[in-house]
């Protein structure tokens, strides 16, 4: 799916998603789970808000010195016996990884969860080269069986219900007893553990992503709860890390600050179960671990985001809090966004990676409620950047003609305040009179986008401006609350 984005079909995707009962049932798990857990764990740590500032500052510092930290990082990986490869594009990254796999004589490759792997559509490339990729994160394994893309950056199968997983396991795991009981989620987990254990032991190459790259030591870091990433990188002879270049942090102390807000923001845990710092291949005296250690650093347009209005997006540590708290994401799920990155962070990042002409709808999928920014552990001003994209889209005449003429129509009045006040007052009175019996409209001309899904309330009382004016005059202190 990642190779063929459907970002420009967002409106159709969203409409379908709203009518999908399985999806709507599964999405209640997002609405109820993540939000409460994050709030509870943040409340337990008095320094949580200050740590968010600290995490933001560290990432800003790293981005401002990115060239120098990347050079130090590379030197330290090399000193530890590892290899660093640089990829400008997704295609270059795929080529490098296939080259390493061929050199290792790889037939099967196990994979830890990596969004960069999704971004570069690595599995399709491995398949095409006759190498079998095996996703090992439970959620990724499930969606690989279904030939789907992840619908969430940390919970890839969050759009599914247990009964759907059960039928996939029965369809694929045909070597197991057909009458086995899979009615409990724990039975599904146990079955996946058994099936994947043999794959871990048989793989020739293990590919993981990286949550962070530490310049000081040349270490790559993965954070997981399952331990699949560790088995992926420990058991095969070759470990390949694929990471985008903004994952760099200066020191172990810096990454420790950020780790304190990562799991809390993501899953509501104080710390994820496994945080693994890997530095180079197996040492002379080691008895296990990979003999070859490669890091592929991917740019794919990120270096050009520096120094622009979108630089702050490179602070993102991929916790998923923005989508967990997004009413649009809750309503339509991750697949509607049509590519690898959903939710608010996807609405900002996807247009930079695919182009605003292909993904211009995504920044429009926001109510600007601001919850994403209020929970972002590195304080990325996501709504502001979505507004930037809307401006770009408008300036480049990419938005639909009806929207453009609507905005122009509104602008005509907005630039003439007296006319605006007169016209809105008139509309209020006319609509108030027309809707005086029911108090609502079930259809309105030019507003079917609203009234198809819910009634439009009939206006009551004066306009906002007239009421604001009245309040200013009747209270001291210019109408501001004391």
């Amino acid at each position, binding site marked *: 799916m990642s190779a063929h984005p459907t970002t420009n079909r967002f409106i159709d995707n969203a409409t379908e998603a709203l009518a999908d009962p399985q999806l709507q049932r599964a999405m209640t798990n997002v609405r109820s789970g993540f939000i409460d857990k994050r709030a509870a764990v943040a409340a337990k740590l008095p320094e949580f808000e200050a740590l968010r500032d600290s995490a933001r500052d560290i990432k800003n510092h790293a981005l401002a010195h990115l060239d120098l930290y990347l050079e130090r990082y590379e030197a330290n990986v090399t000193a530890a016996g590892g290899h660093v490869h*640089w990829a400008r594009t997704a295609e270059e990254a795929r080529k490098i990884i296939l080259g390493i796999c061929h050199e290792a004589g790889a037939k099967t490759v196990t994979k830890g969860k990596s969004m960069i792997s999704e971004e570069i559509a690595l599995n399709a490339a491995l398949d095409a080269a006759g190498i079998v990729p095996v996703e090992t994160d439970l959620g990724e394994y499930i969606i690989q069986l279904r030939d789907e893309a992840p619908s969430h950056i940390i919970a890839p*199968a969050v759009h599914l219900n247990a009964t759907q997983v059960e039928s996939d396991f029965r369809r694929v795991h045909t070597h197991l007893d057909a009458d086995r009981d899979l009615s409990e989620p724990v039975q599904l987990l146990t079955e996946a553990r058994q099936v994947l254990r043999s794959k871990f032991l048989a793989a020739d190459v293990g590919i993981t992503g990286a949550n962070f790259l530490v310049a000081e030591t040349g270490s790559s870091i993965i954070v997981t709860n399952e331990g699949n990433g*560790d088995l992926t990188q420990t058991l095969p002879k070759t470990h390949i890390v694929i990471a985008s270049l903004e994952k760099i942090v200066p020191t172990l102390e810096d990454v420790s600050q950020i780790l304190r807000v990562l799991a809390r923001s993501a899953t509501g845990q104080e710390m994820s179960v496994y945080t*693994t710092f890997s530095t180079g291949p197996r040492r002379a005296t*080691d008895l296990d*671990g990979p003999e070859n250690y490669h890091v592929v650093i991917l740019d794919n347009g990120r*270096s050009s985001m*520096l120094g622009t209005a979108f630089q702050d997006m490179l602070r993102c540590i991929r916790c998923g809090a923005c989508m967990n708290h997004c009413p649009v994401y809750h309503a339509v799920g991750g697949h509607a966004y049509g590519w690898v990155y959903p939710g608010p962070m996807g609405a900002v990042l996807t247009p930079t990676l695919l182009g605003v002409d292909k993904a211009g709808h995504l920044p429009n999928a926001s109510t600007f409620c601001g919850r994403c920014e209020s929970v972002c552990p590195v304080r990325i001003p996501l709504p502001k950047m979505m507004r930037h994209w809307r401006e770009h889209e408008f300036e480049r005449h990419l938005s639909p003609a009806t929207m453009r003429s609507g905005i122009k129509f509104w602008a005509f009045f907005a630039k003439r305040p007296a006319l605006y006040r007169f016209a809105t007052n008139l509309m209020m009175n006319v609509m108030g009179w027309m809707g005086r019996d029911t108090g609502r409209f079930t259809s309105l001309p030019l507003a079917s986008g609203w009234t198809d899904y819910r009634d439009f309330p009939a206006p009551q009382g004066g306009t906002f401006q007239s009421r604001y004016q009245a309040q200013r005059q009747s209270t001291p202190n210019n109408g501001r609350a004391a």
Partner: protein
Amino acid sequence: MSAREEILSTIRRSLGVTGQEKPRLDTVTERLANAPRGLTVARGQLPHEGQVALFKEQAEATLSSVVDVASYQDVPAAVADYLRQNNLPAQLRIGSDPRMADLDWGKTAIELSHGPSDGNDLAGLNHAFAGVAETGTLVMTASADNPTTINFLPDHALVVVSAKDITGDYETMWSNLRAQYGKGQMPRVVNWVTGPSRSGDIEQVILLGAHGPRRVHIMVVKD
């Protein structure tokens, strides 16, 4: 131009720098040399006894089990207790860490296997480099003494941590690690382990025992 040069030069052009500016170079060199600790989290800033107690409390909160062991000589008996209580065979995979391999295991009925795990062990024992009180996190370092596979493949991960190696926060642990391995030097792998393996990938319900150990049992050896 190679991909490396082109990426670095795009970064420099975007940032409006050449990469040769002395103040930038000095800033980076100083940051890497000094590794400032950043914001201190008050939770772990306790007398050492309090840190040990907090470590145990936090580890239990992440569903590890924790017992106190008076001295290293008592470790074999504590392991035997755990295996018996969990109806496990008296078999144990360990590395060559002298703090554990040299103990008198003959007093127990436990049959030891040495070296890395091949995935067929029910129980394995490693020695932690440290424990971090703040979140009840074990810090494991890879070596022949404590092979990484023992942390991940057996169903039951048994871990010895010396009480004196328990720190209040991650930063103090990193200082201790640098003191032992050298500045900028890392063991091949440092594993932070905070509880048994788990997954919430099916309907967001947390289930233990995804791919790694189903149980983590920590033995805190007093000084």
